C-alpha cells in the first residue's frame, strides 16, 4: 500500500448482443475483499442488498462509460489494509443504480485473487516517543518516592 500500482483493464463482453450497454452511463471500479478476508469480520460482510453490502470498500476510479476497452494504472492508497482482494467494476445508469458488473475472479471468488500489504502506520519517531514517555513515567514515580522518603526521614530527625 502506498507504493505499488495495479493495472486494471475493463471492457464490455463482446459476445453480448449490441445495445446491452445503452443504459451504462458511468463505470465504477472498486477494490473488494475476498471471502478469506471476510471471515469473522462482520464489517466486511457481503449482502445481496447493495446498499448494505460491505464487500467493496475502496473506490479505484469512477468515470463516464465509453465503449471499447479501458485501462487504468492505480497506485494503492496508504489506508488499504492487509487482506486478499479482487477487483470489481460496476456499470451505473443515469440514476447511479448498478445495472451490470464484472470482476477479475470467478463467481465463487476463488481464482485470481491478490494480496495487498498495508503500511504499519508506525514510525521510528513514534516508537522512540512511546518508550521515552513510558520510561519518564516510571522514573518520575521512583523520583517522587525517593523525595517522600527523604522528607519523611528529615521530619523524624
Amino acid at each position, binding site marked *: 500500500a502506498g507504493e505499488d500500482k495495479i493495472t486494471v483493464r475493463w471492457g464490455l463482453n463482446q459476445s453480448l448482443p449490441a445495445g446491452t450497454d445503452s443504459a451504462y452511463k458511468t463505470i465504477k471500479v472498486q477494490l473488494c475483499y475476498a471471502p478469506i478476508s471476510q471471515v469473522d469480520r462482520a464489517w466486511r460482510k457481503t449482502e445481496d442488498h447493495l446498499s448494505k453490502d460491505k464487500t467493496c470498500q475502496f473506490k479505484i476510479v469512477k468515470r463516464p462509460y465509453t465503449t471499447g476497452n479501458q485501462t487504468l494504472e492505480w497506485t494503492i492508497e*496508504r489506508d488499504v*489494509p492487509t487482506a486478499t482482494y479482487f477487483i470489481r467494476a460496476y456499470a451505473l445508469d443515469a440514476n447511479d443504480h448498478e445495472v451490470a458488473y464484472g470482476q477479475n475472479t470467478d463467481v465463487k471468488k476463488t481464482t485470481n485473487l491478490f494480496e495487498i500489504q498495508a503500511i504499519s*502506520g508506525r*514510525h521510528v519517531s513514534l516508537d522512540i516517543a*512511546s518508550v521515552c*514517555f*513510558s520510561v519518564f513515567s516510571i522514573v518520575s514515580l521512583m523520583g*517522587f518516592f525517593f523525595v517522600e522518603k527523604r522528607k519523611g526521614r528529615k521530619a523524624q530527625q
Partner: protein
Amino acid sequence: MEISSTITETEPQKFALPVDSEHKATEFHLFSAAAPHMRAFHLSWISFFSCFVSTFAAPPLLPIIRDNLNLTATDIGNAGVASVSGAVFARIAMGTACDLFGPRLASASLILLTAPAVYFTSIASSPISFLLVRFFTGFSLATFVSAQFWMSSMFSGPVVGTANGVAAGWGNLGGGATQLIMPLVFSLIRDIGAVKFTAWRIAFFIPALFQTLSAFAILIFGQDLPDGNYQRLQNSGTKQKDKFSRVFYHGITNYRGWILALTYGYCFGVELTVDNIIAEYFYDRFNLKLHTAGIIAASFGLANLVSRPAGGVLSDMMAKRFGMRGRLWALWAVQTLGGVFCIILGQVGSLTASIVVMIVFSVFVQAACGLTFGVVPFVSRRSLGVISGMTGGGGNVGAVLTQLIFFKGSKYSKETGITLMGIMIVCCTLPIFLIYFPQWGGMFCGPSLEKIATEEDYYLSEWSSKEQGKGLHQASLKFADNSRSERGRRVHSQTLSSNATPSANV
C-alpha cells in the same frame, strides 16, 4: 506522641469546611477546591476520569485499528474482555494498598505504572499486542477503589454517599467522553496530514499524557487524610501502621463485602458490558451509521454526570430519615428497577423507544452504583480498602461474566442477551435482603435488641483485645461515634444523650 485533643473541638479555622471528630468534612461544596477535602475530591475524579478515557479509548477508533492490525471480530471481543478483566484483581490489590499505604501513593503509583501501556498502544502491531495493551491499560480502572477510599476518608457519613457518587460518576463519564474525544483528536491529526494508520497512533498520546499529568497532580497537591499523609502521620505516631494479614482477613471474612461484590457486578458490571456492546447493538439492529450509533453509546456513559451522583445523594437522603435501612431499601429498589428496564430494552423494537428505555435504564443502573457506595463505607472501618476493592472487583467480574454468558459468539441475539441480562440483574440484587447490621438492622429486621448492638461493638470487633490494649483502634472508635447518624432520624435523637453507656432501645 500527639494526644488527640480534638475529639470535642471542631476547629473551624483549620479547615475550610465543617468537620467531625475525625476531621472528615460534613458538607460537600462542589465548586470549591479547598484543601484538603474538596481538593482531594477534584484530584480523585479527574484522575479516575483519565483512566476511564484511556481504558475505553480504543473502541471508538476500532474501525481504523481493526484494519491496521488485521483484527477479527474474535480478536476485538477478546480484547474487550481483557480490558475489564485486569481490574478484577487490581481493584482488590488496590484496596489493600490503600489500607496500608494510603490512597495518594497507591493511586498515583498505579496510574504512572499503567501509563506505559497507553503509550505502547501507539506501537501495537498485531492482535496479540493489541490485547496486551488493552489488558494492562485496564488495570488503571482500579483507581476507582482509591477514589472511593479517599472520599470515604475525607467525607463524613452524612455526605459520604454524595462524595462517592459524584467522584465515581464523573470518573465513569470518561467512558462516554472518550467516544467523543478520540474520534475528534483522530480527525484533527489526520487533517494536519497524517495517514489514517498513523493518526490513530498519535491520538493515543493524548489520553496517555493526561493520565501521567493527573498522577503528578495527585502526588503534588493531594494528601491521604484531612490531617496529612500516612507516612508523616505514621512517623509522628498519630496513625498506626496496620498489618496486611489482619486487614485482609477482616475484609474477606465480612459477608456483607461479598454480597455487595455480587450486587455491584449487576449494576457496574452491567454498565461496563453495555459500554462495550451498545454501539454495535444500535448499529446492527436499527441500521444506523457508526457515527450515530457512537453518539447514542456515548450518551449512555454521559448520563453518569448526574445519575450516579443522584444515587449517592439519594442514599444520603434516605440515611438522614431512615438510617442504614433506608440506604439498603433504596439500593434494592433502584437496582431492581434497573433490571426491569433492561428486560424492556431487549424487547422494544423501535429506535425511539429503545433510546428512551436505554436512557431510563442507564439512570437506574448508574444510580444503583452510587447507592452501593453509600453502604460500602460502613461495612468496615479497619478494612475499608479491602471491602471497597472486593466490591469494585466484583463489578468487573460481573462485566466479564455477563459478556461471556450473553454476548460472546452468536448463541443469543443481542436483544435476547439484553433481556436475559435484565433478568439476571433482578435475581442477583435479591441478596441485599440478607445484609444486616446488628446496630442498625437490615431490610426486613430492625436493629438487634441485645445490649451488645452498638456501633462501637461492630467496629471494634475488627480489633483483638491485644490490639485494643495497644490503642490501635482509636480511629475506629471515632468512626463508630460518627456513624451513629446511620440510625436515622427518630432513633438518633433518642440516643444522642446516651452514647457512652449503651441502653436497650425499645
